[in-house]
């Protein structure tokens, strides 16, 4: 299945882009997607357990992804 990963702020710098269409196995979880993303980041600039939102809502690592989900990897927020 295909998901869209979004990277913001300093994490967009890590991956050199803000958006990536990704093929992942059916039934993948947020945590499994993060492990895959860590494998693309040999310099380990992405922290071990970053915040993640699925379809604009904060998600836990055990949340199961579905085809077409928008998965945002969220750096520490700094609004205000």
């Amino acid at each position: 299945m295909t998901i869209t990963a979004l990277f913001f702020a300093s994490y967009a710098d890590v991956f050199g882009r803000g958006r990536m269409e990704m093929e992942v196995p059916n039934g993948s979880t947020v945590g499994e997607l993060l492990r895959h993303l860590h494998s693309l980041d040999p310099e380990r600039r992405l922290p071990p357990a970053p915040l993640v939102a699925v379809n604009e809502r904060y998600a836990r690592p055990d949340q199961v992804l579905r085809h077409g989900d928008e998965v945002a990897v969220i750096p520490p927020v700094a609004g205000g």
Partner: protein
Amino acid sequence: MRAAVVPTPLDATALLAEVASVANGASIVFVGTVREVNEGRAVSGIEYTAYEAMAARELEAIVTEAVSRFGTSDIVVEHRLGRMGLGEASVVIAVAHPHRAEAYDASRFVIEELKRRVPIWKREEYVDGTRAWVDPTAARAEVGP
């Protein structure tokens, strides 16, 4: 009640007028502005970016929580995105309530929750030409000018 993420300069007076009512005895406006020094470094400006759709959704959720928690629907918040110079407002929160204690509490609740969970980021620009993403949880990563 209203919450918005906007690209344009903020008008605190307009937000104050939006919440004003003869039912309310207290009105509070909080204005967050770009400060000239952060952690000892001279700042020349800040660029704010966001996951815009989620930021708008989270801001709205915070205001909805504040409305039920503090007993007034007269709460408006706007956060600006883009580059701002020193002294420019990045966020305005206007709250009106029959009584001052709840007005102060609601205003404080909205700004603290905003800082905790709304996906907005800022990159500070320094007088020396460098810039860096602000990470409130750790040391900052520096990049060139």
